[in-house]
């Protein structure tokens, strides 16, 4: 199995995880969408040097992962794959912003390093929450929920097809890569060969996408996604939304780690 293929199977695990009946899966997808959006807004709204104040927000992805029985290793692997993007975004902060900000013993930490750490923490929090929600809900149910919340059908359908075709494209790419390797040996292919491969990949993916679309239309697909899991809003969903939004508001308004620190050091003269 090629590396691309292995990565695709790993990604598909999200769907398999979501198909199980976990406490997280039983919560209405709309509630999860609303709470996760609130979570993202709260995390992103912090000052660019905030690090410690963000830590209480880790509770949300952690609880999602536990309630959804999402393996921590899987979540960690996915975070690592996306990490280079976050690192690239914050890479120049330590070089550009050298003003000293924090002193730990003799060492001082520049503001650039602090904002770099802040970017990494935010990345880990938001991506972990998004992954846990997808793995605890399923892309299909999530798109249906977005639709019921008023997102345009064209948008939800696009999102779902993007997800669906990513596997198709990945599978084609993996097979073409294997075929090239078998006849091209270990030599790196020339730019011309890469061009031909990319063009072919596009055409093949088009054809495949068309067949898949036909197969869906043949089974009555009309642009709307329907789910077996009946979406019924219950008191538990209201409690889920109210509880988490309340917690986010509190963690946004009060710097919990700093408060705890003060409380602990209050007795020390």
């Amino acid at each position: 199995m090629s590396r691309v293929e292995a990565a695709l199977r790993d990604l598909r695990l999200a769907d398999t995880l979501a198909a199980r009946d976990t406490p997280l899966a039983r919560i209405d997808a709309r509630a999860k969408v609303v709470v996760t959006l609130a979570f993202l807004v709260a995390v992103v709204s912090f000052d660019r040097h905030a690090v410690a104040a963000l830590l209480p927000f880790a509770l949300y992805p952690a609880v999602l992962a536990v309630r959804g029985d999402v393996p921590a290793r899987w979540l960690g692997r996915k975070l690592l794959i996306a990490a280079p993007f976050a690192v690239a975004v914050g890479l120049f902060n330590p070089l550009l912003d050298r003003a000293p900000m924090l002193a730990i013993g003799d060492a001082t930490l520049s503001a650039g390093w602090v904002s770099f750490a802040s970017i990494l923490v935010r990345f880990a929090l938001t991506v972990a929450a998004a992954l846990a929600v997808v793995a605890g809900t399923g892309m299909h149910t999530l798109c249906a929920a977005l639709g019921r919340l008023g997102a345009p059908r064209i948008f939800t359908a696009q999102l779902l097809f993007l997800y669906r075709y990513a596997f198709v494209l990945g599978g084609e790419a993996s097979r073409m890569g294997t075929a090239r390797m078998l006849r091209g040996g270990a030599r790196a292919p020339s730019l011309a060969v890469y061009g031909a491969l990319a063009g072919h990949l596009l055409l093949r993916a088009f054809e495949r996408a068309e067949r898949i679309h036909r197969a869906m239309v043949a089974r009555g697909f009309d642009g709307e996604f329907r789910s077996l899991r009946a979406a019924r809003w219950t008191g538990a969903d209201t409690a889920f939304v109210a509880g988490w939004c309340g917690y986010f508001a509190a963690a946004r308004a009060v710097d919990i780690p700093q408060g705890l620190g003060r409380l602990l050091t209050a007795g020390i003269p």
Partner: protein
Amino acid sequence: MSHPLVEARGLRFAYPDGTPALDGVSFRVHAGESVAVVGANGAGKSTLLLALNGLVTPSAGEARIGEVPVTPATRAQIHRTVGYVFQDADDQLFMATVREDVAFGPLNLGLAAAEVEARVQAALETVGAAHLAGRAPYRLSGGEKRAVAIAGVLAMQPSVLLLDEPSAGLDPASRRRLITLLNSFSHTKLVATHDLDLVLDTCSRVLVMRDGRIEADGTAAAVFSDAALLARCHLEPPLGWRQ
């Protein structure tokens, strides 16, 4: 003779690049008939099935399912009556679990949840895949995928089944199970295939296609004993055929 259920009158179709795929195809299939569509690669078998299901629109001629002409306007109605099993089961299966995948069609028909559940269960039992209900389709074997793809179509309760290369890529045991399954159906069937032994086991009538036309239309016996016809159409008599 009963009323024709599937009818094609002078169907013509060319792909956008100009390649002709259907060049005046006419035939009638009666309710309950099991008809094989055979021919060389590129003879137009798949395109014919797509046209009968309204998935491609012919440039001339007309297909009818019962009293209903197959047009873009009647497509939704046609898809309730005509089930299509695609050549590559991977094109058809995409939901997270087998159960959800089989439910995709019935849900699109707007049926109530209880009715959908009952149909899913019945369809999976028919193809002997009830034990796979909770599995992820992409992790199934080729034979299991084919069975689930057929269940997904059966759950819509069509009266006509179109099958494109149903035995392609199956191991001998899975292929034998498929043949038993096909013979257990009372549906009107059109089977496009290169597997002439499968034709011998499942179909009473054979349409031979060549360059987008119907070259011959007759009983399996008549077609398979015509050596000149078979050679002209890049076919060979099936191994199980004894004159």
